[in-house]
């Protein structure tokens, strides 16, 4: 909401400067998002007197006008205006002037005659006037005065951010003035007295008192209203409201001044009496903005004998709209139930300044004040005004009362303020305190209970006045969730292993899919996605991590190793499920560099998984029996199973043809579909190393076709020699004689130094067992 400093000053005695205003409003919870000065460009625009006017020699519709400026010099300006003759005073904008529409004036050649700047119409200055093409000035200012003097000088315009609770009562100049008065101990100027409504009960029938507790209607006959006074136009313009016609300007002014929306009907077009009622099903209303609305009984309407003439509190209809020639006016000043207006506004996807006020809640007590202010303004505008019949139907709702609980206020805020201090704070905000009860002002629909009073007291006295303390409660140590801690450990280990954590958003669309994945559950869709490619929630994490690979590879030719641990989403029997997944992706190209890196291919990621598996006791194992998805390299991937032999993921290379989509030749991926907490891997006491020496033996084993290392390892495990400490594959050979694998075996006893013959004996036994599987020692 925009608010003018000068406008605020109309309500406050001893108006403070802009910085104090800003600080005070901040303390009250009103943020100022911008502070701008208004009117600066008007300092260039000068009042001049026309000395001569000649027709333009080369153009019928142009005139050459000589004006005398304030310093006594004369300027010759070309104008297309019909008015402006010797003796008239007009506004002149010399070259360099910035007009409100953004134009910067220069000296231009107009049909052969140079014209420095221009003589202005009212609309070129942003104002409204009816005197003709040029804005003739009839006031007291001397020639040479600048236009800014005519509108009362510059102004400061604040852009306020109102939270919804403050919007209930602060969407007006008087609302903000009251806040300032409370916090800065300022005196408010009195408002207009309430309008003395008549008893023309035949004007209005209110049929929906719940929706419209109070309805005022007053008739005015107006003639010769030309334009609003400059001061009022200037205030409206400063906050960005267009000036149109005195009647419209007055309703806009009162809307922003008092927060009371008014509506003016052309009485000659209304078939009285007016009814305030709920709309009938199927009723139509052609609104002022040109839209046609279908109404329902949930909408409150103002109707005459022919049908709705306004959607109550939101906007009027075209049939009864006022125009420049309107002479008989009905001014509505009403109080509507805010919830109904808000819902109507929502249902019709429709906003107006009136609706933004009524929808938040207005002040029933200000209703007759607004009517009186209308009358006073009309009468001050220089036209002829006659007061017609009027009536107010309904009654002001009772004021809300809350028991004053100073002790509770103190204990909630953590302060030791006396009752007097608390009462004073409330009174400064126009609450009445009497006999242990707080009476809430008629516009404070937001204040319902003691907690709300706490907020008011804290706002007035300032949050800085509340002492800083810490909760006094039992010192219990904070705890972590074991499941989440496990995921965190997994993140740490993957980082340690050289993978970068990424964070992606879970929005997805099957149109983005490059990999075809089977999903056990049903996809969850967003009913209001931001864009088509984000219409569903992901059911798999891997595609997102691969997109990260693609994003990076599209930018630079560098290896990339990334992972994410995050949930995926699905429906099972209609219920949403969130499942934690791990996805890792790594490009496998050799990156040109010196010294040469060691290219381990898929074995780096596989080794990482095995290491993490060991460290965290993930209990994941590879399984050649289970299938891997079709998008995986059939010769370089393996399914992963958990300790119950359920398939929980896969590891391997993507088919190179698919890797190309992510700007890579080969990509290693790991996908774990569900991460559960594994039992702690550490058991018992960590053994100390043996004191006796190790004995190493390298066995080169000839292996049959279709036997893999896993078979050999399993056989060694199954027939594990007593003193075998560990073994590992150290080389693989292939020749005409077949294939061999060299396994380094480390023997060590905890009791003694092993002799060669002891080790030979154990190896002999092992080889005997391996031989049954056609695994033999390779003779050199």
């Amino acid at each position, binding site marked *: 909401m925009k608010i003018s400093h000068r406008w605020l000053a109309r309500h406050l005695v001893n108006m403070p400067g802009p910085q104090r205003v800003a600080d005070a409003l*901040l*303390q*009250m*919870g009103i*943020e100022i*998002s911008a502070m701008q000065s208004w009117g600066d460009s008007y300092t260039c625009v000068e009042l001049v007197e026309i000395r001569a006017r000649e027709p333009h020699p080369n153009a019928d519709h142009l005139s050459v006008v000589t004006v005398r400026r304030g310093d006594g010099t004369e300027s010759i300006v070309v104008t297309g205006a019909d008015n402006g003759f010797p003796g008239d005073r007009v506004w002149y904008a010399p070259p360099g002037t910035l007009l409100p529409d953004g134009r910067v004036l220069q000296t231009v050649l107009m049909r052969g005659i140079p014209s420095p700047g221009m003589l202005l119409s009212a609309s070129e200055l942003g104002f409204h006037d009816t005197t003709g093409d040029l804005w003739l000035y009839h006031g007291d200012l001397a020639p040479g005065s600048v236009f800014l003097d005519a509108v009362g000088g510059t102004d400061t315009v604040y852009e306020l951010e109102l*939270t*919804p609770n*403050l919007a209930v009562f602060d969407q007006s100049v008087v609302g903000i003035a009251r806040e300032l008065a409370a916090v800065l101990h300022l005196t408010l100027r009195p408002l207009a007295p309430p309008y003395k409504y008549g008893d023309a009960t035949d004007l209005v029938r209110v049929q929906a008192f719940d929706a419209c507790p109070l309805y005022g209607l007053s008739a005015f006959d107006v003639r010769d209203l030309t334009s609003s006074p400059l001061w009022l136009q200037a205030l409206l313009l400063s906050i960005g409201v267009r000036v149109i016609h005195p009647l419209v300007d007055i309703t806009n002014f009162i809307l922003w001044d008092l927060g009371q929306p008014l509506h003016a009907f052309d009485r000659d077009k209304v078939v009285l009496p007016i009814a305030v009622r709920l709309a009938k099903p199927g009723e139509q209303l052609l609104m002022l903005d040109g839209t046609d609305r279908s109404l329902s009984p949930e909408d409150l309407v103002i109707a005459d004998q022919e049908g709705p003439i306004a959607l109550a509190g939101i906007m009027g209809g075209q049939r009864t709209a006022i125009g420049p020639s309107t002479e008989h006016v009905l001014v509505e000043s009403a109080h509507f139930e805010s919830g109904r207006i*808000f*819902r109507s506004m*929502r249902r019709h996807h429709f906003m107006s300044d009136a609706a933004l006020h009524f929808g938040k809640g207005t002040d029933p007590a200000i209703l007759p004040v607004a009517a009186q202010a209308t009358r006073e303004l009309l009468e001050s505008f220089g036209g002829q005004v006659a007061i017609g019949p009027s009536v107010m139907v309904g009654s002001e709702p009772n004021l809300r009362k809350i028991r004053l609980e100073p002790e509770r206020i103190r*204990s*909630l*805020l*953590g302060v030791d303020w006396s009752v007097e201090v608390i009462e004073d704070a409330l009174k400064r905000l126009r609450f009445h305190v009497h006999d242990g009860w707080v009476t809430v002002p008629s516009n404070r629909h937001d204040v319902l*209970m003691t*907690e709300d009073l706490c*907020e008011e007291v*804290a706002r007035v006295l300032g*949050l800085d006045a*509340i002492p*800083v*303390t*810490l*909760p*006094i*409660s039992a010192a*219990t*140590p*904070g*705890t*972590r*969730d074991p499941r*989440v801690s496990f995921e965190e450990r997994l*993140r740490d280990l993957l*980082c340690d292993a*050289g993978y*970068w*954590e*990424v*964070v*992606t*958003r879970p*929005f997805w669309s099957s149109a983005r899919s490059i990999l075809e994945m089977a999903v056990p559950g049903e996809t*969850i*869709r967003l009913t*209001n996605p*931001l864009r088509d490619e984000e219409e569903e929630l992901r059911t798999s994490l891997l595609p997102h991590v691969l997109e990260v690979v693609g*994003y990076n590879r599209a*930018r*630079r030719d560098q290896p*990339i190793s*990334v992972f994410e641990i995050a949930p995926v*989403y699905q429906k099972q029997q209609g*219920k*949403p499920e969130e499942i934690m997944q791990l996805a890792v992706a790594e490009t496998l190209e050799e990156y040109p560099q*010196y*010294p040469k*890196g060691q290219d381990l291919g898929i074995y780096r990621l596989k080794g990482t998984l095995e290491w993490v598996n060991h460290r965290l006791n993930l209990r994941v194992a590879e399984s050649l029996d289970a299938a891997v998805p079709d998008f995986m390299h059939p010769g370089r991937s393996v399914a992963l199973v958990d300790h119950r032999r359920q398939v929980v993921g896969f590891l391997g290379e993507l088919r190179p043809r698919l890797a190309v989509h992510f700007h890579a030749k080969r990509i290693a991926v790991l996908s774990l579909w569900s991460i559960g907490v594994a039992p702690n891997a550490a058991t018992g006491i960590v053994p100390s190393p043996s004191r006796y020496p190790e004995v190493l033996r390298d066995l080169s084993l000839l292996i049959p076709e279709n036997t893999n290392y896993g078979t050999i390892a399993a056989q060694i495990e199954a027939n594990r020699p007593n003193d075998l400490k560990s073994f590992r594959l150290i080389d693989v050979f292939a020749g005409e004689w077949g294939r061999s694998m060299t396994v380094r075996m480390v023997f060590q006893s905890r009791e003694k130094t092993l002799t060669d013959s002891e080790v030979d004996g154990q190896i002999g036994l092992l080889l005997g067992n391996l031989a049954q599987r056609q695994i033999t020692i390779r003779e050199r």
Partner: protein
Amino acid sequence: MSDQISEVGQILAQQLATAEDSAAVQEIRTEWVGRRGRITLALKELGKLDPETRRTQGQILNAAREQAMRLINQKLEQLGRVEEDIQLERERLDMTIRGQAPRVGLLHPLTRVRRLLEDVFLRMGFSLAYGPEIETTWYNFEALNIPEDHPARDMQDSFFVDVPHMVLRTHTSPVQIRGMEAAQGKLPVKIIAPGRVYRRDDDATHTPMFHQIEGLVVDRGITLGDLKGTLLAMTTALLGDSIETRFRPSYFPFTEPSVEMDVTCAACGGKGCRTCKGTGWVEILGSGLVHPSVLKNGGYDPQKVSGFAFGLGIERLAMRIFGLDDMRPLYQNDVEFLTGFERYTGRPIL
């Protein structure tokens, strides 16, 4: 006797002096003390002599042998050093070539900031709590005092899913209710709830998914002063002693009174800049005393207990800590951008 020994020494020394490499020395060794060397053979001949001569001859020969060995070893050692130098010179590497960095990854900056926050609050005795991202409208709205027609439902434009009465949670605040329910009336309730939240916004400072940390304390006699104290302790631990803070009244449907907290703008140090819209302050969190209806919905009696709650945007804080003015790169996962956080230590825990 010593004449003979020194004679051997002289001959040997002359031979060794001309030897140019250890192979030549080995030849000399073979000539004198090898298996068929001159001294070795002479020693073998001793057995044929009478005991007396054998004894004296033996002493001479042994002394000569020792001397020969010593001279040869000396020479070998001397040559060895030279040869080692030659060998190592051949192994010379270009030590100006950059070595290979260890392959280590890095946690995402959002994870690091989240952990930093968790750590601060754990030290203050808060426990970690969690709730679902696909949340019921009851937990996300109604239980938090946000009924169907409440204007606050406009403030946080929600993503709805094709499951009836479910939304992507718009804040971590539903965990307030879940946390109270889990505590089953026990006191104190003292939790923080980190997590992903969703709103229909997408620009430089808003992203449709972001992270929050919710805090909740419910106990007898909790005050607004306690809230201020807790938040100040947090900002000090997080941003240091020199940071300035301020509290402003604000509005949230589930707190009353509601308070927002600002900290000095990191970009300009408080002087005012584009990041802080010229104010010198940036907002980091919203908070307040738990609304009585919310306490009731969590199963607590607002007449007997009170509480405070706060919600903090992790992205906002990350932007504050790392001096970012755009949130979007945090989700683009450009490794070059992420590498930028490699050297950042800031506070020790990061």
